[in-house]
């Protein structure tokens, strides 16, 4: 604005400027005055793929409500909102270590009295135990779960009459056979560190180590942890990670230069027999090749088929902050979203698995093979989701699959863990 460009108009302009500021302020005040009969609640959900889906759901909710309006918030990174004492009223986010910090510090309200908690599938309790909760509280309600295993090209397996391996030795044999046939056994995309970590590393470790038990033991030791403690990463992880390096060698030659997008494209075009990615890759693969004939099986890491498990994560969990002024309204929205019809429809469209005892099994042919493992509770959560992200675990795993030393890396990880345990 060109304030004071001529001496004559200056006072007038200043006055009108002040007046306009005051008018704006008054309007803003009116907007949040208590005379408004409708309560506005903020619903935060930032998973990009399903934002339009939830926008529709919120539209339905708002149409059904007389006194509550829910607005959709899609900002990621909620630390700042909590720091400003201004979190959303209902969150629907990935249940990960960042969420865990909020629940551990008591920023989330207790949801243990919700009727929806009673219908949780039996394995939910174990999954929630990965992160410490605030004493006496159940801070989140699981909404949707993702199951991840080895995606494989059924056509290639059928063409060469190959069986799904259930033992580590069979897996090595399979990789050898595929190599002899001139087929790349595993398509890897190590340029993107997270793909090495959540795929090959999480599957290798989850298939061999009891992840929950390992981290429960570490929590027990707490700040006394040293690299010489009874439970360490070096002691538990060395063997599976050496196996992981053995498997990584069966990757495409240019794995170190390939990223996630390259992997989806190549696997869709049948460039490899196996691809260690989660169900989120399936829509991407379908964009290139809608007819790709894909199945999924858990990565065998031992010689006992009873050890087979699939990697899961609570892709969406609901929570209501302690600081929310509209807890009752937020619970109404929560109840709306948790109606079995709505929840099951969401899981079907988002390639998720149900988290209730009465959830229907998945209908997607690409995920079907994982259902028996989930029904019998043979599942684990990835190590990459259990280590605070201040430790660059993803980068460590990227270093390992491209030939780094397991011994050194785990010594570093132990030392990192000890330092973190001491200061938190």
């Amino acid at each position: 604005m060109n304030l004071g460009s001529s001496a004559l108009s200056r006072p007038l302009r200043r006055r009108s400027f002040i007046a306009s500021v005051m008018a704006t302020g008054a309007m803003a005040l009116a907007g949040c005055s208590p005379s408004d009969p409708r309560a506005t609640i903020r619903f935060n959900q930032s998973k990009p793929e399903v934002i339009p889906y939830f926008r529709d759901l919120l539209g339905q909710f708002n149409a059904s409500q007389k006194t509550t309006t829910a607005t959709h918030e899609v900002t990621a990174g909620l630390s700042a909102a909590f720091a400003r004492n201004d979190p959303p009223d209902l969150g629907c986010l990935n249940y990960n270590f960042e969420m865990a910090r909020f629940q551990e510090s008591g920023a989330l309200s207790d949801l243990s009295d919700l009727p929806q908690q009673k219908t949780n599938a039996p394995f939910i309790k174990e999954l929630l135990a990965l992160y410490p909760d605030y004493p006496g509280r159940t801070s989140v309600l699981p909404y949707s779960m993702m199951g991840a295993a080895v995606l494989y090209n059924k056509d290639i397996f059928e063409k060469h009459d190959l069986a799904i391996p259930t033992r580590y030795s069979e897996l090595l044999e399979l990789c050898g056979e595929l190599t002899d046939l001139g087929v790349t056994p595993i398509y890897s995309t190590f340029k993107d560190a997270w793909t090495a970590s959540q795929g090959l590393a999480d599957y290798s470790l989850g298939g061999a180590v009891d992840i929950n038990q390992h981290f429960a033991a570490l929590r027990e030791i707490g700040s006394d942890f040293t690299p010489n403690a009874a439970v360490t990463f070096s002691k538990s992880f060395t063997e599976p990670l050496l196996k992981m390096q053995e498997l990584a060698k069966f990757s495409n030659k240019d794995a170190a230069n390939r990223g996630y997008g390259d992997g989806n494209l190549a696997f869709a075009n049948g460039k490899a027999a196996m691809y260690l990615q989660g169900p989120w890759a399936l829509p991407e693969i379908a964009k290139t090749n809608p007819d790709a004939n894909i199945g999924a099986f858990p990565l065998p890491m031992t010689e006992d088929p009873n050890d087979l498990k699939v990697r899961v994560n609570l892709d969406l969990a609901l929570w209501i902050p302690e600081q929310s002024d509209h807890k009752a309204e937020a619970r109404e929205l929560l109840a709306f979203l948790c109606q079995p019809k709505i929840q099951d429809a969401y899981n079907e469209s988002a390639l998720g698995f149900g988290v209730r005892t009465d959830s229907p099994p998945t209908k997607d042919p690409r995920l079907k093979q994982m259902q028996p493992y989930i029904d019998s509770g043979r599942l684990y959560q990835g190590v990459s989701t259990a280590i605070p992200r201040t430790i660059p675990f993803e980068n460590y795993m990227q270093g390992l699959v491209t030939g780094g030393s397991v011994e050194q890396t785990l010594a570093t990880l132990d030392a990192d863990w000890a330092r973190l345990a001491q200061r938190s």
Partner: protein
Amino acid sequence: MALTTPTKPSNDAKVVAPTRPVKRRQFEATYLGFLVPALICFTIAITLPAAMGIYFSFTDSVGFGDYNLVGLANYAALFTDPAIIGSYSFTIGFALVTVILTNALAFFLAVGLTAQIRARVALRTIFVMPMVISGIVIAYVFNFLFSNTLPAVGEYLGIGFLKESLLSNPDLAWLSIVIVTAWQAVPSAMLIYIAGLMAIPYDLYEASSLDGASSFGQLKNVTLPLMTGYIGINIIIGFKNFLGAYDIIVGLTNGGPGVKTRSIAMTIFTGFERGDYAYQMANATVFFIISLIIALFQLRLTNKGQAK
């Protein structure tokens, strides 16, 4: 900026800077009107947050909720943390190599582009282009070149070392960051050098050529001594900028392979998104002090350069 440095650079040390007029300027509301808004904005947006950050570096805060004062514990942990020390040694090493490469290239480009050659202005424009492209865009383009184009060229021509991407080589990935950063940073350094070169009076060259100096002799005995001020400024500014390296690394290697290319700024940033807030605030405070020392050094150098 140094572009406005007067024609005679620092070597004229014998002349003393004139003392300021002693008469006190009358208090004027207009000046205050210009100054105060900026001061308020700066205080609210920069000074206060920085002070809060320094305060939180003495706590165990995770960024929200309750916290306790822990004294110097974060700092003590900082200086024994190999991840932190690793990021400092990588960043400082990277900044040193990049600053040398950038200035060598920029200087010779500037000498070439101030010579009497055809299409001088057009060439200058072309060489300045990298400066106007955003770092993250440059990084992604080079990422593609390193990951796809160069290996394909290597494959086609049978050149062994090109076949594997520089980005995935744990020992050489840092080199890719040096190359790309230098590519982006050369133009601005070059502009400063061009300004400096154009400020050298032509009669000095005339006189030296009458004395029988070759073009190399002119470069060594006339150009270089008169350019020392500009070189100093360029090195300090460049080094300070490279210490804050972030966007190009994120776009190229994201700290990998492993943690070989994690810069200080990247490590600090993990504290915000990954819940190690107080600890990384301590790291940021240390980094701030280092930057401050460099900035003061730069200020002294510029002041010396302006003395006439």
